């Protein structure tokens, strides 16, 4: 086995026994990036020199007996997490040369645990997209089929984990942006409960929906990263002061007593590929065979989820992105006579088409005369969607569902039709609207060789039960997609 193929837990074991060093491990990952990333396009920035310095420091820590579960582990970060002194682009021309003067809280926590950051990964511009095709800077391809999208918006992180260009990564999820690329690339992705992980230093898209989470090669690694990044942060007033459990302690065999809800509306949804629903239904059987009890649940407002989301998220985005005015940081256009022209020219040249589309949509929904019909109505429907989950979690502990209606689609297939692209988010948006945790775990492979994910949803702050169910599935089913053949 090559060192870059290791997961976080396996590598930790070998580092602890001093069978490998972080320098060897990090070198192996950097060489892997050099060998294949010209084809995959996962990274926007590779921080080779800093990574090797971190690896040396980690090796010194290990020699002196100071070790955390992440000491010396090579990690990638979605390029909307601020990294002090390392450019953070958010996939946008607007921030192409932005060098944050501080670390995001999750980045500071990784550094405190002596993790090695190898680079920053590509994404849809400002995290707006489901395919990473909206990146203003680079194209990322699916390691399983280079003609297909890796999913999005955390497509670079997913592709990097899937093709062993890091041991684990962080992404962010506003409407499925961790879970959907994880599903398309055959890896494990977890969107925590809103407020579980600090958003300080995360470039904001839709502040009531955004959440940072782990993207990993297996479920146990997800639990390790959750331990590192979870918890209250005084710098994020929406982070919740709930105690953080020890997530790996949930990874125990057997699901006796666990009640699993199957939402009929999700399996009856238009456009659900029979191969996807087949793989998910087989996964449900496997989970049942581990002792869980299945029951039908209903989420009757599912048919309103996409419409509510595509009013609320663009509304919040139109407000959040007002800060890009060419004054404090980021791009400033040169051709202007006065300050208004500077704003307009800067924003029109700095933002790509999808970002402008969503700013217009959000501004429209919030503008005088339309606010009640759109934003207020969508916010009321959001309440109904939350109540659906509240009722369902009265009878079950987790809900199982597909992640995406189809496996990864071809690059270019949906890029000219925003509505069709939005509709593909049907199964992931509700977790963000309701603030609940959701997880994607690989459950099968399509006839064309593309990974399929199973989604596990839980009630607020119940990430532990998600990890337990996903872990039991993984123990029984293995890792269905295996690894992509990269020809090196």
């Amino acid at each position, binding site marked *: 086995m090559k060192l870059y193929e290791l997961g976080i837990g396996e590598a930790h074991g070998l580092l602890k026994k001093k069978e490998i060093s972080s320098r060897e491990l990090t070198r192996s990952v950097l060489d892997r990036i050099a060998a294949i990333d010209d084809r995959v396009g996962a990274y926007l920035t590779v921080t080779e020199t800093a990574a090797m310095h971190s690896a040396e420091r980690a090796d010194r820590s290990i020699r002196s007996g100071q070790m955390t579960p992440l000491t010396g582990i090579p990690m990638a970060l979605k390029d909307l997490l601020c990294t002090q002194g390392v450019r953070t682009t958010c996939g946008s021309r607007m921030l192409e040369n932005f*060098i944050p003067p501080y670390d995001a809280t999750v980045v500071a926590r990784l550094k405190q645990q002596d993790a090695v950051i190898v680079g920053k990964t590509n994404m849809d511009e400002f995290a707006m997209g489901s395919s990473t095709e909206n990146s203003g800077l680079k194209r990322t391809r699916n390691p399983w089929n280079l003609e297909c999208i890796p999913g999005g918006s955390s497509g670079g992180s997913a592709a990097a984990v899937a093709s062993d260009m890091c041991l684990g990564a962080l992404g962010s999820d506003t409407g499925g942006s961790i879970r959907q690329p994880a599903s398309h690339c055959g890896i494990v992705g977890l969107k925590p409960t809103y407020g579980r992980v600090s958003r300080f230093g995360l470039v904001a898209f839709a502040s009531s929906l955004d959440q940072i989470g782990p993207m990993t090669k297996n479920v146990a690694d997800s639990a390790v990263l959750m331990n590192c990044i979870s918890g209250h942060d005084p710098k994020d007033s929406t982070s919740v002061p709930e105690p953080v459990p020890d997530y790996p302690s949930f990874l125990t065999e057997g699901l006796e007593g666990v009640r699993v809800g199957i939402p009929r509306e999700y399996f009856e949804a238009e456009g659900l590929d029979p191969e996807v629903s087949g793989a998910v239904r087989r996964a449900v059987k496997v989970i049942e065979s581990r002792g869980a009890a299945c029951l039908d649940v209903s989420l009757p407002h599912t048919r309103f989820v996409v419409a509510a989301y595509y009013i609320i998220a663009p509304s919040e985005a139109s407000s959040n992105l007002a800060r890009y005015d060419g004054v404090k940081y980021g791009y400033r256009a040169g051709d202007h006579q006065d300050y208004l022209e500077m704003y307009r020219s800067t924003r029109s040249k700095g933002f790509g088409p999808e970002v402008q589309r969503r700013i217009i949509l959000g501004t429209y929904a919030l503008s005088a005369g339309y606010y009640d019909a759109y934003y207020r109505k969508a916010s009321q429907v959001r309440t109904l969607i939350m109540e659906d989950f509240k009722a369902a979690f009265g009878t079950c502990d987790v809900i199982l569902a597909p992640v995406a209606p189809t496996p990864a689609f071809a690059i270019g297939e949906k890029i000219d039709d925003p509505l069709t692209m939005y509709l593909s988010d049907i199964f992931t948006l509700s977790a963000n609207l309701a603030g609940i945790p959701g997880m994607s775990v690989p459950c099968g492979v399509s006839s064309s060789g593309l990974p399929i994910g199973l989604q596990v949803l839980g009630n607020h702050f119940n990430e532990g039960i998600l990890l337990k169910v996903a872990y039991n599935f993984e123990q029984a089913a293995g890792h269905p997609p295996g690894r992509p053949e990269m020809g090196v």
Partner: protein
Amino acid sequence: MKIPKEDIIHVAGLARLEMDDAAVEAFSEQLGKVLEYVETLNRADTQGVAPTTHAIFLNNAFREDIQGEHLDRESALSNAPEKEDGSFLVPRVVG
């Protein structure tokens, strides 16, 4: 359904965006389709339903009023497109 072009131009102005005719045309068509789809919300019965703007219940997050660590002026200005004498430099705002 298309959104009238004047509406797109008006909203673009509010959002401080400028766009050429082709972009106005494309947005009027694409956003028209999105808003037509969004009309499905009208089938949801929301009478008496309170709006949700935040999924997790939190009271105000108070803290002690003690000065903490903050960015120094140099760091805060480090990404400014134009700066002068420790300040952001902008085009003339007042005539």
